[in-house]
């Protein structure tokens, strides 16, 4: 299991468009990826639940990855967040 925290820099946070892109990215991996904001969490492939986290600019989220390709997913999810959010 690997995890990282990320502070959201996108002004609009995780709304429909980035949530859709995030789901698409997360589906590339076999590993399960969980996004956590404080006490709430969502699978990274669950669009509606992700949007329901209400992640805003400045929020710190935790991304937890576990599975056979977690090393690769860890690297690529980090790049995804820094490039898109």
């Amino acid at each position, binding site marked *: 299991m690997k995890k990282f925290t990320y502070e959201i820099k996108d002004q*609009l946070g995780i*709304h*429909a*468009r980035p949530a*859709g*892109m995030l*789901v*698409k990215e997360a589906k590339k991996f076999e590993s399960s990826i969980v996004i956590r904001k404080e006490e709430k969490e969502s699978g990274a492939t669950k*669009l*509606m639940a992700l*949007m*329901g986290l*209400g992640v805003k600019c400045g929020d710190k989220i935790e991304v937890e990855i576990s599975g056979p390709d977690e090393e690769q997913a860890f690297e690529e999810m980090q790049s995804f967040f820094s490039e898109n959010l």
Partner: protein
Amino acid sequence: MGLFDFLKSENCPGAVFPASVGAAVKGTVVPMEKIPDEVFSAGVLGTCCGIEPEDGNIYAPFDGKISQLADTLHAVGVEAGGLELLIHIGIDTVDMNGDGFSARVKAGQRVKKGDLLLTIDLEKIRAARHATVVILAVTNSEDLTGVACTASGSVMPGEELLSVEK
């Protein structure tokens, strides 16, 4: 098992498949591939269908529960066990920060088909230079065998827009 589990099941009524998603607004159907935003037209958010609205009243497309309501009120999620739908008002309207949008429901609330969910000021969306198309996207399309847009031309609220097979 928790003491209040029975409330959860009551809060989330099941969809009966094949399910039907009604038009959420009066207007003209815009096929998925004609929606002027790739995130919708390419199906990133699931199979969807648009309606170019004639007025700003957004109604529940089926009996279910409000699964999420964006703080900016430009998008609302409705679910009925096994069917998850996102109603997204306009393109890039997230940057309007709720100006021109008002909610008639709260997250978690149960709704009946035809209940008023949101009222929107189409003029404000136009003034902000955004497309006004209202998009209904079945966000868990991948878990379902068939989601298809069944309407074309003019639709009234509640008329079938999408059909969904489990």
